[in-house]
Structures are given as structure tokens and as C-alpha cells.
């Protein structure tokens, strides 16, 4: 189809659509030129100081040139930034490998464990000649990734157990699962994080402290698992009774039936709500700031604390938003692809 007939068929195919097209074009004409003017034409690029930006009058991308390391890595010792950078690269590589269906083999669990240990060594240091870095100095994107990825990775299997527990015929297990899910869903994440970071240590014996990052991680995991469990349960409920019976009739044990027959079908059905919860969890990591951790958003805020740069907070937050968006958009696209991939052949 040539361009002019495409335009006719899609934009001017009825009076109402023609009107809408014209209105949309007018709106774009109002918005786009000033935006380009601000973001590109009058923007200030490259190194400089707040004065450079003020003189340019447009977007201050200079802020990012000057402050990106603070925004990305928080207060992690400056000369050690290669360590969190490498840790992030490892995370991304791990996620890329896990995204591929061909690698869904038992060894992948081992690969996760190994990568997490290596990342831990990189971030903490104290061995192999690496300078030790307290977790209180961790920050920025690596911290966001550590909390989000590990919370999701731990919450997912836990949520499956909770969902199965909620459908269990054993009254004690059922009551425990229901109680847990309802309790956690009934309180805001902020209070779960507070509980994990303030209340929890009070119950520990004198002298034993649990790391702050670990506490936030546990809080996020417990919270996310309760929501995920309900998504998983939705999938379990959609599996016809005949599937359970066929698995039983073949002599499969409860766990074999679940693992080989029921869960593969159930989880496939609830990929969208599960990924939804992953995305929520990823963004909710920005709440760990209330227990004194400097995640990506908090580190961005810290970078903007500098009085000279403060007027350019829009550029700072835009950059942080872009990073969040990249990860969340990837998850969303991946879930769509996975749904199609898993539906191949069946039905």
C-alpha cells in the first residue's frame, strides 16, 4: 500500500477520524517543538557546572555528566565503582540467560546461587584483596537490582508453596497459608519494611544484628510472596479436576503431579498477573529509602541535594525514571513474548 492511500485508510477514513487526526496533529504541533527546543536545541550537554546550564536555558544534561556516578552508585566508595558495575553486568547477564527457555534446566538454579555469591563478594569485599564495603554504603542501581531481583527470585517459589498451601486439604497448612496471605496483604509495604527493620531486631538476642539490606530484602520478599501467591492460586483454580485425577491415576506423587502437570499449566495462565507483580516489586524497591537505604531514586535525590544543581531536579528524575522504565518495559515485553512462546503448539 502506498503512503497516501495508507493515510486515507487509517487516518481519514471517516469524518470523526479526520477530525481526531487534525486535533491530534494540532496538539502535537503545540507540544513537540517546545519539547525538542528544551531537550535538544537549548540543552546543555557535556561537562560543566550549574552556571553552564543556566546560561544554555534548556535541559541540563550536564547534571548527568557530572553526577551520574553518584546517582548510579550512591555513596559506594568512588574508586571502587567498578565492583557494583561488574555486579550489575553479572545480574543482567544472569537475567538474560534465565530468560531463555533453552536454559530452564536444573543447573540454572546453581548458576543463580553462584552468581549471587560472586555478586556478594564483589559488593562486600573483604576477601581476595577487595576493600570491605559496609552495606550501609551500598546504593543506587546496584542496590535496587540486588533487592528487586533477589526479592522476586525468593518470593516466587515461596508464593507457589503458599498458593498450594492455601488449597491444601490439611487444615493446619491451609490456615497458616490463608493467615499469612491475608495478614501481609492487609498491611502496607511501608509498615512491613518498618517491621522488618525496626521491630524485628528487637526480638533478636542482644549483640546479634541482621544487616539492613538483608532486612529490607526479607521484608520485600515476604510482602511480594503474599501477592504472588494469589496470582498463582488463580492459575491453580483454572486447572480442571481431570488433570489432577489423571496425574493421580498414573501413580504420580503429589509433588510430581504439581511440578510436572499442574504448575506448568497453571503458571502459564497467570504470566500477566505474575509479571505485573514483578514490576510492582521492582518499583516498590524505591520505598526502602524509608529504612535508610539509598536505592536508585534515593541516590538521585541525594545527587540533587547539591544547592547549585537543585533547580535541575526534573532532568535528574527523568533520568531515574528512564532507568526504571527500561527494566519494567523489558519485563512487560518479555512476558508477552513468553506467553506466545509457551502457547506454541498447544490448543
Amino acid at each position, binding site marked *: 500500500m502506498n503512503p497516501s492511500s495508507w493515510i486515507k485508510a487509517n487516518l481519514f477514513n471517516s469524518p470523526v477520524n479526520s477530525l481526531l487526526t487534525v486535533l491530534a496533529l494540532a496538539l502535537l504541533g503545540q507540544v513537540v517543538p517546545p519539547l525538542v527546543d528544551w531537550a535538544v536545541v537549548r540543552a546543555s550537554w557535556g561537562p560543566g557546572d550549574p552556571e553552564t546550564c543556566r546560561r544554555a536555558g534548556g535541559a541540563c544534561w550536564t547534571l548527568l555528566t557530572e553526577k551520574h556516578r553518584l546517582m548510579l552508585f550512591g555513596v559506594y566508595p568512588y574508586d571502587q565503582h567498578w565492583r557494583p558495575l561488574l555486579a550489575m553486568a553479572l545480574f543482567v547477564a544472569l537475567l538474560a540467560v534465565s530468560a531463555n527457555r533453552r536454559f530452564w534446566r536444573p543447573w540454572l538454579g546453581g548458576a543463580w546461587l553462584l552468581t549471587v555469591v560472586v555478586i556478594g563478594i564483589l559488593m562486600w569485599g573483604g576477601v581476595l584483596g577487595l576493600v570491605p564495603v559496609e552495606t550501609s554504603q551500598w546504593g543506587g542501581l546496584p542496590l535496587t537490582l540486588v533487592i528487586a531481583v533477589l526479592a522476586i527470585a525468593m518470593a516466587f517459589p515461596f508464593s507457589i508453596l503458599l498458593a498450594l498451601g492455601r488449597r491444601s486439604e490439611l487444615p493446619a497448612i491451609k490456615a497458616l497459608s490463608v493467615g499469612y496471605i491475608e495478614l501481609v496483604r492487609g498491611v502496607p509495604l511501608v509498615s512491613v519494611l518498618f517491621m522488618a527493620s525496626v521491630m524485628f531486631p528487637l526480638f533478636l538476642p542482644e549483640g546479634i544484628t541482621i544487616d539492613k539490606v538483608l532486612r529490607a530484602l526479607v521484608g520485600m520478599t515476604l510482602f511480594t510472596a503474599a501477592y504472588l501467591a494469589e496470582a498463582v492460586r488463580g492459575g491453580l483454580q483454572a486447572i480442571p479436576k481431570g488433570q489432577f485425577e489423571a496425574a493421580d491415576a498414573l501413580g504420580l506423587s503429589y509433588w510430581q503431579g504439581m511440578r510436572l502437570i499442574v504448575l*506448568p499449566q497453571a503458571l502459564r495462565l497467570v504470566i500477566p498477573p505474575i509479571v505485573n507483580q514483578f514490576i510492582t516489586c521492582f518499583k516498590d524497591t524505591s520505598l526502602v529509602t524509608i529504612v535508610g537505604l539509598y536505592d536508585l531514586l534515593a541516590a538521585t535525590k541525594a545527587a540533587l541535594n547539591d544547592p547549585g544543581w537543585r533547580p535541575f531536579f526534573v532532568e535528574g528524575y527523568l533520568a531515574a525514571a528512564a532507568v526504571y522504565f527500561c527494566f519494567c518495559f523489558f519485563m512487560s515485553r518479555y512476558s508477552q513474548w513468553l506467553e506466545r512462546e509457551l502457547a506454541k503448539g498447544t490448543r
Partner: protein
Amino acid sequence: MTSPSQPIIELRDVNKWFGAFHVLKDVTLEVAKGERVVVCGPSGSGKSTMIRCINRLEEHQGGRIVVDGVELADDVKAIEAVRRRVGMVFQSFNLFPHLTVLENLTLAPVRVAGVAPKDAEATAMALLERVRIPEQAGKFPGQLSGGQQQRVAIARALCLKPAVMLFDEPTSALDPEMVGEVLDVMSGLAAEGMTMICVTHEMGFARAVADTMVFMDEGRIVEVAPPAQFFDHPANERTKRFLGKIIGH
């Protein structure tokens, strides 16, 4: 485990309730090795419930059920052992839609019986030959016709080399033109001496294949007889009425 004289399946005074509803009332039945039993009776008379008790998809509350020398009680291992010896074919096929036909067939042998995958595949292919659909091995169940799916389901139930096959109305969910192909496979099995209990209303099949007819009504076994006697001289009034209804039209 069983001596030749002992029945391979024995139900003695089996009682079962769904809540307050008494579904099975003092059901007693013995099935010998190689015997072919066809169960019929009106809807809701407890036929499905009875055969589902034999592999413990339903739990009975009174009486004894012994299968191949193992009594069904609360012991989970014993139940799993019995299920490996008993194949079951359902009205609604219940194939695993996320696995290929071949994977449906090899799953239990590999995971439950510990057969090497290669051997399990060879057995599975031989069984698919036998139900005459070897060319469908790589397809998913959703891509097959109802008759083909039910034949796959029969092959799947045979994969563990069961001593007994249970059929719960295997042709009721099929379009009429596919009933024949499934009954053919079942007749073939019967001819090879497989012990079978079939719930079915296919009376032609029953007459041709059954050694014993069982008629159930309101949770009781009302009449047990060889097919010739059962069809031509039923002893019980209710049997007569039932046969009149289903053969009449």
C-alpha cells in the same frame, strides 16, 4: 502376588457417602485375572464412584478393597503402587495439554517407574502403533480429534503395563463416528486377555466382549450375570426396565 484362584480385584461390603448422601451401599464384587466386566446402570447410580474407588480417586468409608493383593487404606505408598498396576481411561480423556502425545505416554514410565527415557519412548511408540496413530506422536493433544485423543489416553494408561484397566464411559464424550475406533481398540485389548472393568452403555460392545455384566442402581449392585443371560433373561425387574429403555430406542 496373587495366586490364580484369588481375584485380582475384590470389593467387599464397600460403603461410601458424599456428605449425607449414601452413594455406594454394600457393594461386593470380585474380578478374576483376565475377566472382562462391563458395568451399566442409570445415571447417578454410582458406577463412576465404584470404579474410582478401585484406584482411590475416591475414598471408601466402609468395607474392604483389595487390588492385586494390596488393600487400599491410608498408606500413600500402597495407593501409589496400586495406581501403577491399574490403568484408567476417563470420559473426558484428561490428556496433558502442555505435553506432546509422546511425552504424555512417557511421563509416568520415566518419572514413576524409573524406566530409561529411550526404553519408555520405544514402548510408547509401540503402543501408539497398537492404537493406530503413531504418526501423531509429536503433536499436542489439542491438535487431535476426540477419537484420537481417547486412543492416546488408552495408550497412556497402558504405558505402565497395568494388570487392570478401568474405563469410565470412554466413548460418551465422542462424536458417533469416532466411537467405533475407540471400541475397536478396547476389543483388541480384551482379546489379548487384559483384565478390564468398563462402565459403558455400548451394549453391542458389552455383549461381544464381556464375561460378566454388572447392573447398578441407587448405589447397589443389583444383578451380576454373563451377558447372554443378562440381556436375554434378566432376573431383576429394574434390570429389565433399564434394558428396555436403552435397547428399546
